[in-house]
């Protein structure tokens, strides 16, 4: 594809490790949106995610001498792993100390995403209803499955990166996808069957 040497992540990473803070700034600018988007799936408080990002990049800077070098494809997953770890730690802390205002919905506060689409995305009424239904099915998936789907299809990450970020084996990621899609296909087919039956009955 297009290889722009100036914005190459591996190069920026290398320069930052050599002590060039501007390169770290460029890396942050490049991955900022993806990190915030990912982070808000764990905690809706954007200000809090922004503070976490500060912590991550400052930590990277302080540890720059001991970090290993990364290839371009590894940089974003590495940053996402750091963010996830930090948010997970925060989540555990909250659970442990049982912050009252949060505990009301603490069950959903770790990786939480809604796939039910907004009207504006889909113009076709029929398709909309169907997609909305699929969206509801997706919303009911286990959190791990939702997170893997998010990383695969929003961030276009490959299985090894997803495995690294979520802290599970590559095989588990594959299994997760397989099970999820099999379940979805079954659910959709069953529903379709009942829908047909119902329509038939009505007519």
């Amino acid at each position, binding site marked *: 594809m297009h290889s722009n040497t100036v914005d190459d992540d591996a190069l920026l990473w290398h320069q930052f490790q050599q002590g060039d*803070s*501007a390169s*770290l*700034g460029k890396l*942050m*600018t490049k991955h*900022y*949106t993806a990190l*915030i*988007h990912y982070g*808000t799936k764990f905690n809706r*408080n*954007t200000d809090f995610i*922004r503070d976490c*990002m*500060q912590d991550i*990049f*400052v930590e990277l*800077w*302080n540890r720059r001498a001991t970090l290993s070098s990364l290839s371009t494809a590894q940089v974003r997953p590495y940053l996402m792993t750091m963010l996830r770890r930090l948010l997970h730690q925060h989540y555990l802390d909250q659970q442990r*100390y049982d*912050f*009252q*205002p*949060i505990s009301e919905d603490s069950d959903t506060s770790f990786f939480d*995403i*809604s*796939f*039910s*689409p*907004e009207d504006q*995305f*889909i113009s076709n009424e029929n*398709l909309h209803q*169907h*997609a*909305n239904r*699929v*969206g509801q099915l*997706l919303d009911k998936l286990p959190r791990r499955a939702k997170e893997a*789907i*998010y990383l*695969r*299809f*929003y961030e*276009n990450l490959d299985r090894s990166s997803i495995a690294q970020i979520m802290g599970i084996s590559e095989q588990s990621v594959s299994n997760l*996808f397989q099970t999820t*899609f099999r379940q*979805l*296909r079954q659910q*959709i087919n069953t529903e379709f069957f009942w829908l047909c039956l119902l329509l038939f009955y009505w007519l």
Partner: protein
Amino acid sequence: MPDYVTFTTEDFLADPFFQGWVRNPTAANEAFWQEWLTQHPERMDEVKLARQLLLSLQTEQPVISPEQIQEDVQRMLQKISVQNHRQPFQTVSRTNNIRWLAIAATVLLLLGIGWWFTRPENGAVIGPQLTSVQKSDGMQEQRNDTQQPLRVSLPDGSVATLSPRSVLTYPAVFSDSSREVNLVGEAFFEVTRNPDKPFLVYADQIVTRVLGTSFRVSAYPQQQQLTVAVRTGKVAVYARATSENTHKGVVDKRIISLTPNQQVNFSKADAAFRKTLVEKPAVIDQTVKINDFDFDETPVSDVLQRFEKAYGIDIIYDSDLLRDCALTASLADETMTEKLAIVCKGIGATYEIIDGKIVIHSTGCR
């Protein structure tokens, strides 16, 4: 063109050409996929599911402006440049610090033992005293009816300095999971650190939660505003649902986290928090020396970084605009706000406190 015959649902979903067809159908890709499907009718199920999923995989993402990215990147760069100045000292002095701490602790211990054996007999306390009530439910109540602040030692070793006309209630023995106290009026707390047992101060409509820090809570019943001000460490503040504020329907549900020299005001009228700075920020970095505030043609960005370091407060400014600004001044005894006013006057700028941070407005120097 990849071999679509071998594709699973997942592969279809990730394929840019397939995505293009579902999201932005054109005559060309429409023709391709219709043709492909008639050739491979057995793949219809996979394609259909992938298509439906792709249409469903829409989610609301927060909108992020380039300004926000710029702001946060600047903030980060500023932080690491401050840290750069600090780094070499920190690593060297840490081991030394521990040694000094050990020596200081030994001396304190000896002094303590000496005091224990030489102190006046019990009951010979002079001066104003707290009114202490032991309640039947095991709660201890301390009331300060005098004209001066008085110290209360809590069961866990924490100390509360209770202001006049204030009442502190706490259990004779704290529970296993937390340390909870009730405050009416005002007190300054110095909480001993215990990460396993958070320390919670319930005061009127707000709750302050810490693990080990020092901070002041002010909640006199007649005041319209409740405040929490932080001296050291980190503090979390949130509103609690009371009969008084829930029926109003609007309670600020945020958890406000405060760092040193920050303060939050909670207005009883609209049950909302507002974050700001304490009236007189104190120097929190103990390594700061008096002459650290002597400036001789010093770039203003350096000056501001020294402020950030000394007071632990974020200062937001446009480093490009301030590039040509330099300052010569000798500041020492002034409060932080006075110092800041002098700096701003020197470079023709103004400052504002927003959300517990200082924002410098300047048009640059030339």
